[in-house]
């Protein structure tokens, strides 16, 4: 059974039909990378997968069921760390507020996950005092500590200075090696090459092509994919 599945998902905002029937599935441990032009609905799709947004039609399921709170982790382009909390508090809050863990337990787990993303020495810093790369790693720890069954990344490195991209991709790669099921919207094509189980091309609210990275990048079938790749590379 697939881990995460979208089945004929439609979403519209007023007159604008953003998702026009998206169907795809992610097997346990797979990493799917989605590329596509701006405005094609990639972010909307991720928001529907994490149920931040309710699809107008179609279904989203996690292991055959509707995902519960915190079951699908989400990482945003702009990090969205809680500005009024330290790195540690950012990672703790989900455990305390959603998983109802006692504070000391939550703190211990949060520390463990901050260590995992290499930020054991930044626990007391506020988001404003961290670099973009560090903020994004805290955001990843904040999502991971909830023990999600799948992780969604919405252009996690596109708000970062070039020299900070690597540290975030490294964390994501090690996560993929550990077998995390992931959906990543990203135009880091080398990352897609190395890590993706398959790459998806999205355009005008539809998935127009899906293939393993080797095939996707060397011999794309769709004209739109070819054109888009020539623009990104």
């Amino acid at each position, binding site marked *: 059974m697939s881990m995460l599945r979208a089945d004929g998902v439609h979403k519209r905002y007023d007159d604008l039909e953003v998702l026009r029937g998206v169907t795809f599935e992610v097997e346990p441990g797979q990493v799917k990378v989605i590329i596509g032009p701006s405005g094609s609905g990639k972010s909307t799709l991720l928001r529907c997968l994490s149920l931040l947004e309710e699809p107008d039609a179609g279904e989203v399921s996690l292991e055959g069921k509707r995902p519960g*709170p915190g079951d699908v*982790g989400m990482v945003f382009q702009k990090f969205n760390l809680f500005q009024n909390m330290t790195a540690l508090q950012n990672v703790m809050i989900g455990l305390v507020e959603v998983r109802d863990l006692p504070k000391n337990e939550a703190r211990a787990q949060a520390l463990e996950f901050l260590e995992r993303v290499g930020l054991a020495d930044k626990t007391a810093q506020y988001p404003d005092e961290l670099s973009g790369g560090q903020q994004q790693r805290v955001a990843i720890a904040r999502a991971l500590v909830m023990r999600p069954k799948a992780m969604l990344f919405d252009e996690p490195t596109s708000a970062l200075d070039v020299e900070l991209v690597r540290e975030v991709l490294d964390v994501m790669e090690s996560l993929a090696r550990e077998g995390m099921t992931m959906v990543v919207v990203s135009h880091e094509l080398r990352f897609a090459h190395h890590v993706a189980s398959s790459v998806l091309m999205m355009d005008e609210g539809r998935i127009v092509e899906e293939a393993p990275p080797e095939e996707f990048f060397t011999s794309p079938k769709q004209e739109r994919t070819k054109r888009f790749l020539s623009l990104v590379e």
Partner: protein
Amino acid sequence: MLASFDTHLFWTALTSSPYWRGALLALALTAAALSTAVVGGFFLALGRESSSRAVRTLVFLYNWIFRATPTLLQLLFIWNALPQLWPVFAGTWFTPFVAAYIALSLNEAAYMCEIIRAGLLSVDPGQELAGRALGMKRRRILRRVIVPQAIRIIIPPTGNEFITLLKLTSLASVISLQELLTASQNLAAVKFQYVESYLAALVYYLVIVSILMAVQSRLERRFTWTSRRRSPVLAPAVPAISQSDAR
């Protein structure tokens, strides 16, 4: 020094019981009315953003009525007209202080509504999105994430409202509340020495506002999130004197 300045009278006035009682009363009235208005304004602000059209309209009407009419008229209405409308307000419990407290709270809530609403809206929507992605309930996100960040924005204009309200308490002298202005008027009427009488009242206002400024800058630092408590840069620690003094 002015030839006619009577230092002794000034000093006597400053330390006399009508003055410091009057100042205490003004301070108490301001603090009580502002606290009530902050709570009221918070719920009005939520109402302004409500999905129900009826609720939004009610809040709009409330703000319209209390902002479009003179505060003095509202005060007189509550003190004189309310007991005629409802006999409960004719009881001895309905003192000038209570009447002024009700009038200023209702009036100030309309202003705080706009301030709090602007504060809540200024928080990046990504903050709520991140909270929802973690599975937090809306109410918890509001309490743990949005409200603390909005408070930082709300503090400086609220400091201005405190000063405005403090000055508005002098209006309550018309309903015979024995506040600072009443104390100085009474003294001036007896002694015909206006300079000393008014100056003493002025000193009290200045002292109260200075204490407020100190409290405000401490609060602002408390709601600035850095591990090194640098002084806030977002807004001046000293409140600008409000431009909306026409009330």
